């Protein structure tokens, strides 16, 4: 069973520094987007890598597309040796991004994010404007529908009509 909400809750309650980006961020702003993965941009400090690894380890993360027969060790050191990761876990796919095109690293994303209460816990979610910047910078055709939704959401919030 997919439970991306629970993954976000676990990360938040463990004190992991992260910002939700991608489809779940669009969804949380009201977009009618359905996604199978939770994309987060994470702080790459040693302490945060440790918390992130400790929180996700019980969900048995493995790189997507990785041979099932091959051994894989998931710990903070694994995360230190890369930047962006695409994992499958027991609660659904989780993508860890050290940087987001068009915006930058965690500290840059925090400035462009909003703190949102999610039924008892709060987390940082990239703003509509930040999501537009990221999707425009990626220039991928698959992002076009998401961008249309984001432009519409942004316009719906503007004071002028």
């Amino acid at each position: 069973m997919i439970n991306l909400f629970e993954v976000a809750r676990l990360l938040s309650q463990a004190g992991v520094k992260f910002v939700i980006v991608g489809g779940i961020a669009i969804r949380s702003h009201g977009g009618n987007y359905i996604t199978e993965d939770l994309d987060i941009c994470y702080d790459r400090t040693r302490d945060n890598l440790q918390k992130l690894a400790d929180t996700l380890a019980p969900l048995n993360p493995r790189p997507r597309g990785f041979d099932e027969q091959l051994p894989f060790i998931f710990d903070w050191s694994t995360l230190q040796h890369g930047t962006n990761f695409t994992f499958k876990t027991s609660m659904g796919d989780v993508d860890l991004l050290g940087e987001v095109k068009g915006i930058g690293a965690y500290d840059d994303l925090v400035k462009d994010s909003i703190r949102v209460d999610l039924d008892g816990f709060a987390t940082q979610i990239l703003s509509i404007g930040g999501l537009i910047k990221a999707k425009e910078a990626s220039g991928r055709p698959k992002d076009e529908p998401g961008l249309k939704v984001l432009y519409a959401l942004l316009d719906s919030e503007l004071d002028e009509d």
Partner: protein
Amino acid sequence: MKKRTPEEKLLDPRPGGNIAAASEYGIDLTQIVENLRLTPAERIKGNDQAVNSVLRFEEAMRREKAAKKSKTL
């Protein structure tokens, strides 16, 4: 003039704007309106439920195909 709410703007977009463009592109704005009536937590949980429904449907289709295949063998 009274300022329109986001919901009103989405349900009755001004021609030439980004909301009208999204509608013309094929985005179902009524789904966005429905989502905006939910809390952010409910929106994310709704995503999980939708994905799980699709996965259950795909699993049922796989089982059906396997059952048909075993009957023809």
